[in-house]
């Protein structure tokens, strides 16, 4: 097996009020796969995602253990957090365009990284919009407000905004929540084609979606990673009773 893109080792996370959100998480995520992290609400999925690129810095909580990205510990002081977040880019559950045009949104991260050259910006805009299947819908109105887009378009814009950074890893926290089935299908389509180039980590909307898109999956329950495995195994023959109960719909 090739070196893991992201390797999480004995990771604990405790909220400010002392409640343990994640307990002893260890998992290797190989490159160029879709890794799906599923489980009931409030089981710690979003918390885990935010730790990967240290967005957890914004929260008042304490992390212990290690997250390695390309073999490098992300929690070291010398880690350039901005750089890390460009390489492990995040798409949120609620699509949040920044005020400004579609073009502004797509180029924001690039400009913040110091890329100002118009040709390069244009290239990244076009490429990322094509990758997220939004190009045909917005190519004639890149200058109009991002808030004028529909919900599904906004979510794909947010995906494109992450892709424009040409990251290594794309982290998606329930990217199809609130989307209609057609938009959902479009987003899922784009994910398939993206994994050739990126490592994708995703919290799905449902177990069904998890089974549809995942190459590899992990089941998270009450802050504990119950089971990790290849999707074709895990969703058919789960090893743990709790996983089976959950995917067969006996709880959660």
């Amino acid at each position, binding site marked *: 097996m090739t070196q893991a893109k992201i390797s999480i080792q004995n990771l604990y996370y405790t909220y400010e009020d002392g409640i343990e959100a994640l307990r002893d998480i260890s998992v290797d995520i190989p490159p160029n796969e879709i890794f799906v992290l599923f489980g009931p609400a409030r089981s710690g999925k979003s918390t885990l995602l935010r730790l990967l*690129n240290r*967005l957890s810095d*914004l929260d008042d909580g304490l992390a212990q253990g290690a997250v390695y990205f390309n073999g490098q510990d992300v929690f070291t002081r010398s880690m350039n957090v*901005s*750089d890390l*977040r*460009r390489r492990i*880019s*995040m798409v*949120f559950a*609620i699509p*949040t365009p*920044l*005020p400004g045009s579609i073009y502004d949104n797509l180029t*924001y*991260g690039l400009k*913040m*990284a110091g890329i100002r050259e118009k040709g390069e910006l244009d290239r990244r805009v076009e490429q990322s919009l094509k990758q997220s299947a939004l190009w045909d819908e917005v190519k004639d109105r890149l200058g109009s*407000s991002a*808030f004028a887009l529909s919900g599904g378009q906004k979510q794909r814009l947010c995906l494109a*905004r*992450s892709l424009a*950074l040409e990251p290594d890893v794309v982290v998606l926290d329930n990217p199809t929540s609130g989307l209609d089935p057609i938009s959902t299908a479009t987003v899922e389509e784009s994910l398939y084609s993206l994994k050739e180039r990126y490592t994708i980590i995703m919290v799905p909307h449902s177990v069904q979606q998890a089974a549809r898109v995942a190459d590899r999956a992990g089941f998270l329950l009450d802050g504990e990673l119950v089971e990790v495995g290849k999707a074709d195994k895990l969703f058919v023959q789960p090893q743990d009773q709790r996983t089976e109960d959950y995917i067969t719909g006996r709880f959660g």
Partner: protein
Amino acid sequence: MNRQQTNRLAIGVITGLAILVVIPIALVILFVFYNGIGTINWEFITAAPRNGMREGGIWPALLGTIFLTFGTAIISFPLAIGAAIYLSEYAADNRMTRMVRLAIVNLAGIPSIVYGLFGLGAFVLFMQFGTSILAGSLTLGILTLPVVISTAEEAISSVPQQFRTVSLSLGATRWQTIRYQVLPHALPGILTGVILGLGRAAGETAPILFTVAAFYLPNLPRSVFDQTMALPYHLYVISTQVPGMPLSVQYGTALVLLLIVLSLTLAATFVRTSMRRRREW
């Protein structure tokens, strides 16, 4: 008397008294306007006072107030914005932050005459700026800090948190996030605070009494180390210190001062509402 009658009576009394409180506000403004408007003409605005200030205009005082207002803005704006950003974006919930907040509350409560004393002790005498535009601007700048900080902080805090999160997640640094996602959207609110602060500064008399204001000056100030006349102090002087002063000149001066201050207040309200309407989220 039954419950319903008591209710109607009470509500009626409250309504009546509230109207009694509010009507004089409009009346005061109209009263000054009515008595002062006849005096105001081009000469009154642009000429220097003559004949022991009983004739001529108010130009030196008006100009002085404009200078002082600008000076106040220069002193207070950077410091207040910085403090507001600190409170909203950097301050942890700790002892130090509580002390900063306490300091701001208390700065807001210090009487303006005490600011005047401080300006006299610190800027005029200790730093040897003398009674000067510099000393006056510093004093007024500090006096306006609390109001500008509070309004600016509120404006900055009201920028949705998601914009910050998204910006950071796209690799922007903390300062870039503030610079490009927080401040631009908070700008109308910040401006509102600054203009309100300037309105307050333009109308204050007590803080400039010992730090800058001159009774009468034949010449306009040439540098920030010069004294200047100022409109509020001029109004005080001509209404209480100069015998035989025509009432019309007093009312005219009061009206000009009132117009300056009220138009700043109105401008602040206007900026706030019009920018709010243009907001996309």
